[in-house]
């Protein structure tokens, strides 16, 4: 019996192909936009996430100087209280901190043969790779011994390699940094632009001791990077770092810190929150169009019931029960909703594929959105078809037969 009712419903829809298609269009557009929008939002979210994760592994950055720029102190990084010994102490004493490096940088002119290029020289220790989530493409990174001895060695980024060594292997070459000879020991794996549009390959990494002694002649460091043991330990690490530095800098309770700890997990969370809100907003707008599509189904089903009053009368006269009529119309609206939903999924998936290409974002088809809209479009069929179907089922056979 139910199979017969499905067959009857399908034939009724097939009879009015254009109308059925137009009715489905609302659902198609609704579902397609939900999927495309949610995929787009999640793609963006993923993009932001990976960029932030790419800045370092569970990264915390400490900068000398207070964020509350009180009184005589200058801006961040200008205070002279942070030292490499502070960094070593934190690494020794803070259980939540897995790796640490002083960071110091300065702009330097580079010369190799007749090529020259100005870039940023970054000073760090051998933990740089793991803290910054980077890797060496060729050659190797400098060692702890190089750090101890303030050796004139450097690892260069891909951009620097391209500028100074077009068509040459940079490893083993001697370049001049501010007229001092440095040996290139390795080349970093390319990383592209940072979230803030900075070229992360336009860099030159060397022992921080070398930068401090040979290039800047200072004894303090402007900042340091720390890696927490896990993503969930970053807050704990922040507390430990703060405690240790305050003790080492003899800051009394109630006094402001003379340094600032930035927790990139916080930044990541904020960014994630923002893109989640965007996803929900886009999805919400798309869902409204889905709702409009549902109302379209209801509208057409009501018209259809009125138009087919006589048919309903005939069916009832030969023995159709109310619920047979009700199911017949309900099936029609569910088929409209579901078919529209499936077509919408196809189009939505296609659209998000194209969008991800255009924006060069990761292709992320949300299975939740796909299954959700399949179920939802069916539910829309039931919900918006229910009233018209009830109306059809409630008709009086005699009056339905008299209907002109």
């Amino acid at each position, binding site marked *: 019996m139910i199979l017969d009712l499905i067959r009857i419903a399908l034939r009724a829809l097939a009879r009015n192909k254009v109308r059925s298609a137009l009715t489905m269009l609302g659902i198609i557009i609704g579902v397609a936009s939900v999927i495309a929008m949610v995929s787009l939002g999640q793609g963006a979210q993923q993009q932001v996430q990976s960029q932030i994760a790419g800045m370092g592994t569970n990264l915390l950055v400490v900068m000398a100087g207070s964020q509350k720029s009180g009184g005589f102190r200058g801006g961040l990084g200008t205070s002279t209280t942070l030292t490499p010994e502070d960094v070593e102490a934190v690494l020794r004493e803070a259980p939540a901190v897995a790796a640490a490096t002083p960071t110091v940088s300065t702009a330097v002119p580079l010369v190799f043969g007749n090529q020259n290029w100005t870039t940023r020289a970054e000073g760090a220790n051998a933990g740089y790779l793991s803290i910054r989530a980077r890797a060496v493409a060729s050659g190797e990174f400098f060692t702890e011994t190089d750090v101890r001895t303030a050796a004139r060695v450097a690892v260069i980024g891909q951009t620097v390699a391209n500028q100074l060594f077009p068509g040459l292997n940079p490893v083993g070459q001697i370049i001049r940094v501010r007229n001092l000879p440095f040996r290139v020991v390795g080349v970093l794996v390319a990383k592209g632009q940072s979230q803030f549009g900075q070229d992360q390959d336009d860099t030159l990494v060397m022992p921080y001791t070398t930068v401090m002694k040979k290039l800047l002649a200072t004894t303090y460091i402007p900042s340091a990077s720390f890696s927490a043991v896990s993503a969930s330990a970053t807050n704990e690490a922040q507390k430990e770092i703060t405690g240790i530095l305050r003790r080492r800098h003899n800051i009394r309770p109630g006094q402001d810190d003379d340094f600032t700890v930035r927790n990139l997990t916080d930044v990541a969370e904020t960014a994630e929150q923002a893109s989640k809100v965007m996803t929900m907003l886009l999805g919400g707008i798309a869902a409204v169009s889905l709702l409009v599509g549902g109302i379209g189904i209801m509208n057409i089903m009501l018209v259809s019931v009125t138009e087919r009053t006589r048919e309903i009368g005939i069916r009832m*006269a030969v023995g159709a029960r109310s619920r047979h009529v009700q199911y017949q119309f309900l099936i029609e609206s569910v088929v409209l909703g579901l078919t529209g939903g499936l077509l919408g999924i196809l189009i939505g998936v296609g659209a998000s594929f194209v969008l991800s290409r255009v924006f060069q974002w990761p292709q992320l088809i949300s299975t939740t959105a796909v299954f959700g809209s399949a179920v939802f479009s069916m539910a829309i069929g039931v919900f918006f078809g229910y009233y018209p179907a009830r109306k059809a089922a409630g008709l009086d056979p005699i009056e339905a037969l008299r209907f002109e």
Partner: protein
Amino acid sequence: MSAEAKPVIELANVHKIYDTGAIRVHALRGVSLRVDRGEFVAIMGASGSGKSTLMNLIGCLDHPTRGAYHLDGIDVSQLSKDHRADIRNRKIGFVFQGFNLLSRTSAIENVELPLIYAGVPVTERHRRSRQALAAVGLAQKENSHPNQLSGGQQQRVAIARALVNHPSLLLADEPTGNLDSRTSVEIMELFQLLNRNTGNTVVLVTHEPDIAQFAKRIVVMKDGRVILDQPVRQRRDARVELASSLYEKPLEVTLS
């Protein structure tokens, strides 16, 4: 009426009042009527006398405001909507003046409609629908749609649909109202044949006295009451008339 004959229809003092808010129409004012198995009754009367109202009650399309109605010995006067649907499906075949076929649906699919709601399996459904179409002489037209058929052919499809569930009662409200005289006689031949050979009880409404002459009994209504109920004298036989010179080509009807 013999004592042992089983009544198919038994109406006792039936009233029907249409209450449409502003106006109340007392369409039936105490109708009592008994129709036995195998009878062929023609209901006549002026327009508005309540014939269709009575047929709708008998056909379980509606229920009486007052009074009792027993169909095949069962009191059906106050059944629920669904129960009445089941009774219509199993016991009653209804033929309308306007044919009431589903448009854009083939003859055979129109005929099998009652069987769908009776839950008859597909193959059985097709077999019985073909048989019913053959019985009304339309075996060749099973795939034709109503708009490809003449009025007489459409009415025969409707009769096949009414027959397909082997109902105990065949009701027809002005079945020849939209047909020419020869086609009307052909339709009446079909009813007479079904009544004679298959033992179907037939009740039909007609305006035309010469159509009523094909029945065995005439009931005349006026203002919602039965004013005359008598057997037909000089009954017409459609088969004989069609065979005679009066109408040119006799209709071949066979019942399996």
